[in-house]
């Protein structure tokens, strides 16, 4: 299934994607692409379809129509190799979802050992490395509930990084955090962007999106309503985006 990717080919591409939950049309012909090393911010009101679009990329939602290609995997097809896809894609959720019965180290080493067959000692070295990346080396042997929300989210990012994904998806990862904890998580994401990680993020942090995103996709009623560089946030062209950024969202 996986073709050789040339460096110019997009890592993620959605073409005319359709998705309904019952009678509710959540995605109505959504198209966008993400190039290697690009940071794309998906913004929009609650219910605009941005989270659903993100979840379709990792096939947590099956699409009704259209085409999704991620790292060469045809995600819209029923025969897509899910495990291969998910080794290429890392996803981080709003609610962290660390495994509560495992230490941070075990949370991180589980997938590399179980999925990639990595030796335990090698996986432990890797755990130390990715935890250092998010500034949590000293929490190696702690359990999730002993960590603050911000620390749990950084540990969840480290857990994803340990699988060495080609693209990372962030689904409102700071929505459950206070401003101070939000800042420490955003710092980690900023560093990832600086290291050249390809990322798609659903976010309500407009100031952050403006600072980090190479491109903004503004969704409205299941459609891509306006798209462009981060500067569209300060000079939007559609009335909907004007209203969206004008409602106090752009405080940073």
């Amino acid at each position: 299934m996986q073709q050789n990717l040339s460096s110019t080919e997009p890592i993620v591409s959605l073409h005319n994607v359709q998705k309904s939950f019952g009678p509710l049309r959540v995605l109505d012909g959504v198209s966008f692409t993400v190039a290697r090393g690009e940071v794309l911010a998906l913004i929009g009101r609650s219910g605009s379809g941005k989270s659903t679009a993100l979840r379709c990329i990792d096939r947590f939602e099956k699409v009704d129509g259209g085409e999704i290609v991620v790292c060469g995997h045809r995600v819209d097809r029923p025969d897509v190799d899910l495990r291969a896809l998910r080794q290429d894609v890392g996803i981080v959720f709003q609610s962290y979802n660390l495994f509560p019965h495992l230490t941070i180290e075990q949370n991180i080493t589980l997938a590399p050992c179980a999925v990639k067959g990595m030796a335990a000692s090698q996986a432990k070295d890797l755990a130390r490395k990715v935890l250092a990346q998010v500034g949590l080396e000293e929490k190696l042997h702690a359990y999730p509930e002993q960590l603050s929300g911000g620390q749990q989210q950084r540990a969840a990012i480290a857990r994803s990084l340990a699988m060495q994904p080609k693209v990372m998806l962030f689904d409102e990862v700071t929505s459950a955090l206070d401003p101070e904890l939000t800042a420490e998580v955003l710092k980690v994401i900023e560093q990832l962007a600086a290291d050249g990680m390809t990322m798609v993020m659903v976010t309500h942090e407009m100031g952050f999106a403006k600072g980090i995103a190479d491109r903004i996709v503004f969704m409205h009623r299941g459609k891509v309503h306006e798209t462009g560089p981060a500067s569209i946030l300060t000079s939007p062209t559609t009335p909907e985006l004007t209203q969206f950024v004008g409602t106090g969202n752009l405080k940073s």
Partner: protein
Amino acid sequence: MNLQLDFPAVLERWPSFLAGAALTLELAFFATVLGALLGTLAAVGRGTRNSLIAGACKVYVETIRNTPLLVQIFLVYFGLASLGLKYSAFTVAVAALTINVGAYTAEIMRAGFEAIPRGQIEAAEGLALSRLQIYWHIILLPAIEKVYPALTSQFVLLMLASSVCSQISAEELTAVANYIQSDTYRAFETYIIVAVLYVILSLVMRAGFWSLGLVLFPRRRRLGTPL
């Protein structure tokens, strides 16, 4: 009213009491281990998308939960006999108790599985773990942890209920008591002693489960909240 209790006459049969108590504990041990396995499998089976497997598991659980244990024991006992299969009373008792407690365990474990937040499973899927790996690494222990007190009670109850195995002459504690009281004509004393022994066995089992919990849930030990 003139109540006269003569414990020495009964207590001199202590080796028999002890042997009966040991057999009760042995019955409970095997039925607990096998029943836990059977029940967990049935709970997983009930949750699968395969409607044939899910249906079979449901029929098993509901049949057992809606018939008396004694009838189940007789069904296994006479059923095997009429098929020409000869097993010891102990084996039949273990089999019947396993089938019985498996059904209750399945219901308890199902509650445990359903209590695992959907996000845990999505996170595991996102890390490319397979269905089986997710059950094994992510769902099983936290599910057991959530229902551990209920499981403990169920298995202690099974040990107490094993007294009806006296009906197929498995030589467990109650069967032993029946012999002793008919020998000594000291029924009240005999059953007082047996009741005390059952209390002790229950406490032994609860202590066993508590210790097992320390091994199964190291996080609770670390955080000082053992079950």
